[in-house]
């Protein structure tokens, strides 16, 4: 339990430390980001990887569920570039197809978590008082409910497990975002332009959407970026607990899990999906790092 949560913890914490500054000019931000060479390389790498994964049906050498029992657990060769798995399926093919699911889970879960967190955090921060107190206690409530039983419940009611997993990770990763956003809004809302907008009679909703959110977008974006990596890691942890996506549908998480039993004799089975997760999350973090520098005008 705690690992699943701690995973997110660390990264969300890093996001919380970002100080809120005035909105940077998009062009300046972009130029700054380009200066962060590592982030650029990471973005390119990730884009390439994602493109390969999503084009898997076109470029993969085999079918992802093409079982060949005569060739199980074969080391990398010319025919199977990354070798074959326990059922003789081409590892490269499964890695590409698995990436589709894992990356999709990462992106959608992070988006869901960020959306919920931003909504709740901005409402709490902007309205303050009773609403703030209520929403913060709601955050406490969500924070103190263990994820595991919920995963079991939700996965038994959703037909596609991937959807259930996205919902779970999304629903339980918004608390940090909401705290960060609330804090950011608290400091932004006393700014003159917000006071001015309010004096001019703008509606609360409009003020939040037009004036406040854009100014705290950097913390939201960075948090969301890190959330992607978090979700990918969480999916693999769920696979370890037997609560991940059902085979034969590959995900990096269940591929990694399936390979554990024969880790020492067929290391390629565990190294390739492990590297895929590691590199993806690493890249996502580099990008987050780059974005943080780029969006922070003091650097």
């Amino acid at each position, binding site marked *: *339990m*705690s*690992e*699943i*949560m*701690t*995973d997110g*913890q*660390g*990264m969300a*914490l*890093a996001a*919380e*430390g*970002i*100080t809120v500054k005035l909105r940077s000019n998009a062009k300046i931000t972009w130029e700054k980001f380009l200066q962060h060479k590592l982030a650029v390389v990471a973005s390119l790498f990730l884009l390439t990887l994602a493109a390969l994964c999503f084009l898997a049906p076109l470029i993969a050498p085999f079918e992802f569920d093409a079982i060949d029992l005569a060739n199980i657990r074969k080391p990398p060769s010319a025919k199977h570039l990354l070798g074959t798995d326990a059922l003789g399926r081409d590892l490269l093919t499964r890695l590409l197809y698995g990436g589709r699911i894992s990356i999709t889970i990462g992106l959608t879960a992070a988006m869901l978590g960020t959306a919920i967190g931003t909504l709740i955090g901005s409402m709490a921060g902007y309205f303050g008082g009773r609403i703030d107190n209520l929403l913060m*206690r709601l955050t*406490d*409530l969500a*924070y*103190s*409910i*263990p994820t*595991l*039983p*919920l995963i*079991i*419940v939700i996965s*038994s009611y959703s037909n596609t497990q991937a959807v259930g997993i996205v919902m779970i990770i999304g629903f339980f990763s918004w608390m940090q975002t909401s705290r960060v956003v609330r804090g950011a809004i608290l400091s932004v809302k006393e700014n003159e332009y917000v006071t001015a907008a309010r004096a001019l009679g703008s509606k609360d909703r409009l003020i939040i959407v037009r004036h406040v959110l854009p100014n705290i977008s950097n913390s939201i974006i960075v948090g969301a970026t890190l959330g992607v*990596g978090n979700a990918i*890691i969480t999916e*693999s*942890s769920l696979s*370890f*607990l037997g609560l991940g996506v059902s085979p034969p549908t590959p995900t990096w*998480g269940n591929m*990694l*899990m399936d390979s*554990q039993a024969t*880790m*020492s004799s067929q290391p390629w089975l*565990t190294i390739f999906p*492990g590297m895929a*997760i*590691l*590199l*993806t*999350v*690493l890249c996502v*973090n*580099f990008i987050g*790092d780059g974005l943080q520098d780029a969006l922070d005008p*003091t650097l």
Partner: protein
Amino acid sequence: MLRYVIRRTIQMVPLLLAISVVIFTIIQAAPGGPEGTLLDRGMFVDPAAIDAYRARLGVDQPIFVQYFKWLGAMLTGDMGISFQTQRPVLIMILERMPDTLRLMGLSFVVAAIIAIPLGVFSAVKQYSTFDFIATGASFVAIAMPVFWFGLMMQYLFSVKLQWLPVAGTVTVGVGGFVDQLKHIIMPATVLSMHSIAGWSRYMRSSMLGVLNQDYIRTAHSKGLSRRTVISVHAVKNASIPVVSVMTLDIARLFSGAVITETIFGWPGIGRMFIQAMHARDYPLLMGIMMMGSTMVVVFNLIADVIYGWLDPRITYE
């Protein structure tokens, strides 16, 4: 301040009640029941035995009846009897506490001791080789799934090098401090890795923010040495948010760590929780989860109080 603490403490009661209702509903909503374990041995079972079993455990009653029964007993301090082991839930939880706290506590302390200096030095020597190594290592640690990292460690240190034992807290028949230390090294390392990575990143970030602030620059200009400025002023201020976050994490110590405990055969509470979940051992599940939730709520309050205490700018309404 005192009024704030009292108010928050009173608010805890409805919050915990709400949590208990939510948790109770969730575990009951999960398909399957405690009788499922009867078939687990893979041998035939009499259907009459299954019905009798359900009746004996009281799970044939409506959910709200079960809830109020549970709540009533809970208010008198009775956490119920575990379905699987027929033992009092409280005893089962307390039994696992020492080892849970030993492992979680050690990894917490180790993580804190390493993470804070790491973050401080990374920030002070921003973009230095040290910073790069620390950042790189943190990212790698964050990017590795826990079970993968754990099993890799086990394979390396227990199978290949034969330095450390695979499972348990002690070698029965050998024992001693060194033996116990050998047992705890791997699980504690696996657990603290993520915290070190997370906290040090956070500390670095917080420290950078502080170093750029005016009063630090003022201190410099007043001729204070860099070392004094950093150790006395900057670290103190930068650690405020980190400390409050770490306080929140203390609550997690009591809930254990499912994956690490499973891999290293550690008798912690996390593993007991997942077993209870699979067996739908409702009283034990409720006991563990309510304890975890209470800890989170309590330490949440403590974190808020500490935050205000360390940072005089915060006032409590």
